[in-house]
């Protein structure tokens, strides 16, 4: 291997890989506010964006400012990203609701730490899984991905941007302190493929921003391109103006739900292995690393096989797919670094005669393989 190629291989943290992914995706705007354990992402972006003409990095006054700045940027047809942690993610919820309602795609990275409130900044946690899903009010869809390695921090960011652009939805990347601060030797790609929405074709008088055919994979106009656009957080008609007609309210919410429902065929991402086994571990994020280690250790000790499913995309929860994959399982173990958040989703997915066991750790340390083996 030549020296040139070696230069691209380096020991990088998840946060560094995330910042590199953001740079390669080349968003127009990154608006963020520093917070442990996500600060390194914006630090790197701030540094790198100085070399890139036309790119804006802005440190806002807080996370409410960050999300509103992103909403403004995406309304103007720009790509926007931010990185934060639990407390900042809480502040962003109102703005995330606006992004969902006004259909403004953006990327929000949440490097999870302990909570509630300021909690434990330097410790790890997976406690924001439900906040990602239900943090903002109203009946709304959301997409969230969850990387388990430095390389996946890069790959899933590219995936997230593409989903966000295609569905016109905010997408949340749930990292955690461990994957954010851990260094692995990786070679990251120099080119990424990013999906760009097509521009609408004239005539302008027939353009409706929220037309049914503009729900996903849309030809969408932005402010300043000559089309008539109206954005609001209120329930709106297809021209974007507010209404309270029951029929339109229902149409509005159905439209949002269909972003996920119509795309379920490709809107899932998981790894699985040895699913014929009686016992299966369902995990995500860094808990998945402990789960894989537990599987290897247990099999070496006992000679019995254990199945494993690792979700890379936690929302939308892959109900049908998981139902099929867990068909022959009698016991399902769900290890998480919280008090059992995704455990209930798994429990209501499998049939009643399957026992579902929640393995929890929420003291800020990483789940150990032994804790999972104890439940096997």
């Amino acid at each position: 291997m030549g020296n040139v190629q070696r230069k691209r291989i380096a020991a990088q943290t998840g946060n560094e890989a995330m910042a590199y992914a953001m740079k390669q995706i080349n968003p127009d705007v990154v608006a963020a506010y520093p917070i442990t354990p996500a600060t390194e992402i914006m630090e790197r972006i701030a540094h790198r964006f100085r070399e890139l003409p036309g790119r804006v990095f802005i440190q806002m006054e807080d996370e409410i400012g960050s999300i509103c700045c992103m909403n403004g940027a995406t309304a103007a047809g720009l790509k926007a990203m931010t990185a934060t942690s639990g407390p900042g993610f809480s502040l962003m919820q109102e703005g995330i609701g606006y992004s969902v309602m006004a259909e403004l795609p953006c990327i929000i990275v949440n490097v999870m730490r302990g909570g509630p409130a300021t909690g434990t900044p330097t410790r790890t946690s997976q406690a924001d899984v439900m906040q990602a899903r239900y943090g903002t009010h109203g009946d709304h869809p959301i997409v969230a991905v969850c990387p388990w390695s430095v390389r996946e921090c890069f790959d899933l960011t590219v995936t997230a941007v593409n989903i966000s652009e295609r569905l016109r939805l905010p997408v949340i990347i749930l990292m955690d302190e461990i994957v954010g601060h851990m260094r692995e030797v990786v070679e990251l790609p120099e080119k990424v493929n990013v999906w760009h929405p097509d521009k609408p074709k004239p005539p302008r008088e027939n353009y409706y921003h929220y037309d049914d055919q503009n729900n996903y994979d849309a030809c969408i106009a932005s402010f300043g391109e000559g089309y008539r656009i109206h954005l609001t957080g209120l329930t709106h008609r297809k021209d974007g103006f507010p209404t309270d007609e029951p029929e339109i309210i229902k149409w509005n919410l159905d439209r949002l739900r269909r972003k996920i429902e119509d795309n379920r065929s490709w809107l899932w991402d998981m790894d699985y292995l040895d699913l014929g086994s009686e016992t299966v571990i369902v995990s995500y994020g860094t808990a998945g690393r402990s789960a894989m280690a537990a599987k290897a250790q247990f099999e070496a000790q006992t000679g019995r096989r254990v199945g494993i499913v690792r979700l890379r995309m936690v929302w939308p929860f892959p109900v049908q797919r998981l139902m099929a994959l867990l068909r022959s399982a009698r016991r399902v173990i769900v290890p998480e670094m919280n008090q059992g958040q995704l455990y209930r989703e798994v429990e209501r997915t499998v049939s009643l005669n399957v026992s579902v066991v929640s393995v929890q750790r929420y003291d800020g340390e990483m789940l150990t393989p032994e804790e999972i083996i104890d439940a096997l």
Partner: protein
Amino acid sequence: MQKIEIRIAGTGGQGVILASVVLAEAAGVYEGWQVVQTQSYGPEARGGASRADVIISDQPILFPKCRKLDLLICLSQKAVDTYLNDLKVRGVAVIDSFYVRECPHAQTICLPLTETARRELGRELFTNIVTVGAVAKITGLIKLDSLKQAVARRVPEQFLKINQQALELGWHLGVNPG
């Protein structure tokens, strides 16, 4: 399967984190091992103590934290007091002759890391790179040449020569415990 867990611990400012990154890159980029490097980010990272862990293996490393150390490098007495319990019974402790007074462990190697940096290179600043050289030699997993390439990526160019000298000095201090 071959796997070793290494911890470098000392006081903030001794450069233990840079040392661990150089070690990880030498092993991972130039020698083709699987590596994971972590460091303490807790409040203790501000209280003066500093610690970084490196796991080197021939298999993918799933659990990224060190649990039972094969090798513990202590650049301060506090590091010995805090982390000696994490060392395997047959693990090896490497201590700095200047800053560590005692280390109650059977397999202890006492090396003049700080003194070498001061005496040979004129500045204590290079202790961390001297340490990397010694540690790599002790593990027997990394070649001196790989270390030199790894250090070139992580230090400013004008200090490259002196850092490579530090590596060599450390390399010659290190002994393979067998």
